[in-house]
């Protein structure tokens, strides 16, 4: 295998608030290969979204990248000027957000918005861009592209808007698509439609997808590899198959066990106790220590580092071996 498409190394991100600082991302490293679908799973506050948004320069104003690199095609994205990043975003990296309405221009015809993506990046000339827009709309499963070209965002349903967002993201045929909770606001049947569409596009174009989600079901069924984040750290990282078979981090296990799925009726579900805390100081131990069943003094004193745990499987836990024995 050659160079990874995107490799993020030791990323740290902080947010400043009026009275304190939030340690949002605390040393995250991972790579995405060509044609890979990576799922980054975590609850709100886990830093999953911030990690990717920092890498592509979409960090909120009060956020600051304190260290780390994000290499994409030989350049460190974190060192680029905003203008250069804008150039890469939309051309080489497509981004789709949870709420399409916030990223679509309400007073611009959707066709023009898709075309604009291609024109600003000099991806295609006017005529070509127009043709391609129609084709994209068709590919996205939007009926009657020619007349829908002239519609405005509010004339579409949530699912259709998300397709338009995807069309814009894909307009310049990026090598990487970053999808931040793209289906969370959608109904299940529509979610299925969007996922099928994405999978199809991946197959056809060899595009890589990073799926940021809180939904384990989605990640495990859609992605090749899975990263579980908590407290701004990677807790577990594995191929999906490996993850399904032998997830061993207490947090992953806890989450998996706490999800109510069809067929769970009558079963006792064990929720993870307490709630996640916002980190306002550097970690001094495992961020999950105060909610974990296996916590020892070591967990509170020593930050667990990501380490190999079997093939294609890494995790950050001092006691993974014992946990694995106990669970199986």
């Amino acid at each position: 295998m050659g160079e990874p498409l995107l490799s993020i190394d030791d990323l740290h991100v902080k947010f400043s608030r009026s009275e304190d600082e939030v340690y949002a991302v605390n040393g995250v490293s991972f790579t995405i290969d060509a044609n890979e679908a990576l799922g980054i799973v975590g609850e709100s506050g886990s830093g999953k979204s911030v990690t990717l948004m920092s890498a592509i320069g979409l960090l909120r104003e009060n956020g600051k990248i304190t260290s780390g690199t994000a290499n994409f095609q030989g350049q460190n994205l974190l060192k680029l000027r905003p203008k250069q990043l804008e150039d890469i975003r939309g051309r080489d990296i497509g981004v789709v957000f949870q709420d399409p309405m916030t990223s679509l221009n309400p007073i611009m015809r959707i066709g023009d918005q898709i075309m604009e993506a291609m024109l600003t990046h000099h991806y295609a000339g006017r005529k070509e861009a127009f043709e391609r827009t129609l084709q994209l709309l068709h590919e996205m499963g939007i009926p009657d592209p020619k007349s829908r070209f002239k519609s405005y965002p509010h004339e579409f349903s949530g699912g259709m808007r998300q397709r338009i967002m995807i069309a814009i993201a894909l307009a310049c045929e990026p090598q990487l698509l970053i999808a931040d909770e793209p289906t969370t606001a959608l109904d299940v049947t529509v979610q299925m439609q969007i996922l099928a569409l994405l999978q199809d596009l991946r197959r056809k174009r060899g595009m890589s997808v990073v799926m940021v989600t809180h939904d384990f079901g989605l990640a495990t069924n859609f992605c090749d590899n899975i990263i579980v984040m908590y407290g701004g750290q990677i807790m577990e990282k594995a191929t999906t198959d490996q993850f399904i078979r032998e997830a061993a981090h207490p947090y992953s296990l806890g989450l998996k066990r706490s999800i109510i799925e069809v067929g769970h009726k009558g079963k006792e579900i064990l929720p993870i106790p307490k709630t996640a805390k916002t980190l306002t100081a550097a970690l001094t131990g495992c961020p999950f220590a105060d909610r974990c069943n296996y916590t020892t003094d070591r967990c509170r004193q020593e930050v667990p580092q990501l380490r190999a745990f079997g093939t294609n499987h890494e995790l950050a836990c001092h006691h993974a071996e014992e946990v694995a024995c106990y669970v199986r």
Partner: protein
Amino acid sequence: MSDNPLLRVENISKTFRVQGKKLHAIENVSFTLEAGKTLGLVGESGSGKSTLGRLVLRLLESDKGKIFFDGADLSKMSKEKLRALRRDMQIIFQDPKASLSPRMTVGDAIEDAMAIHKIGTKASRRARMTELLERVGLPSEIQYAYPHELSGGQLQRVGIARALSLNPKLIICDEPVSALDVSIQVQVIQLLRDLQQEFNLTYIFISHNLAVVEYLSDEIAVLYLGEVVEQAPADELFKTPTHPYTQVLLDSILKIPETPEMKQQMVSIQGEVPSPLNPPSGCTFHPRCPYADDHCRSVKPVQSLVADGHVAACHRVKEPQDLLLLNAK
């Protein structure tokens, strides 16, 4: 079914006027619910499930139909009598923060519920409030907090405590966990389940999340464009989903696979939920249904009996049972 259910809803309908057009939010919905049981209402956005919940409580007035609660005809009741009766039927909202006053501490919010119905004295309401906070798993200091100081999970517990303070018989839970993080969802759902057993509560549980609905419900009604397309006991519905829409819904759920081989394929259903302003002719599901034929496009199906206590509004129900099951997979 017993002869004396806690709640009986008969053919209620509700039409809104939107941009001069008629929007049939709920059409001819009927069901009965026995005390201590849970009816789950599932459906996608625009299915009318939240509207139905509000019609049952008469927070919205229905255009026609009858609602019998605890033997009394709600639909004919005067506003004053209804207000007094609200003690017995409560609702928990999707967004607990929006349902609480930002200028009232959560303790005051709970006490106010009891004060409205002149339950007990000031001191006894206070005592009951602290007791309730504890029962829903919150520290008693939280009574002094304002809603914006609490997390979504904590606020939803406050919402539950407020509903409980009136000792209701029926609680309508309108998407109570969909705004919460996964690990908090389970905490709240288990709380709801425990409270149901403890106080013999009756729930109408509204959600788009089938797994959560299944977990809590005894009976499930599937709504599509304001109509009940299928209704059955929970296990029956999941074992033998009969309406094509129910089947699609079930197939769209992404479960964590138990083994890598069980990973699901992303197979999508055609079409979108049609606009309720302009519903399709015949069976409203026909544009998305893989089995639709001309009959479906022109004639609206009525609910027919699939099995005991299991109804579905689909023309195919008349087909032989085994063929149906064959198609289901």
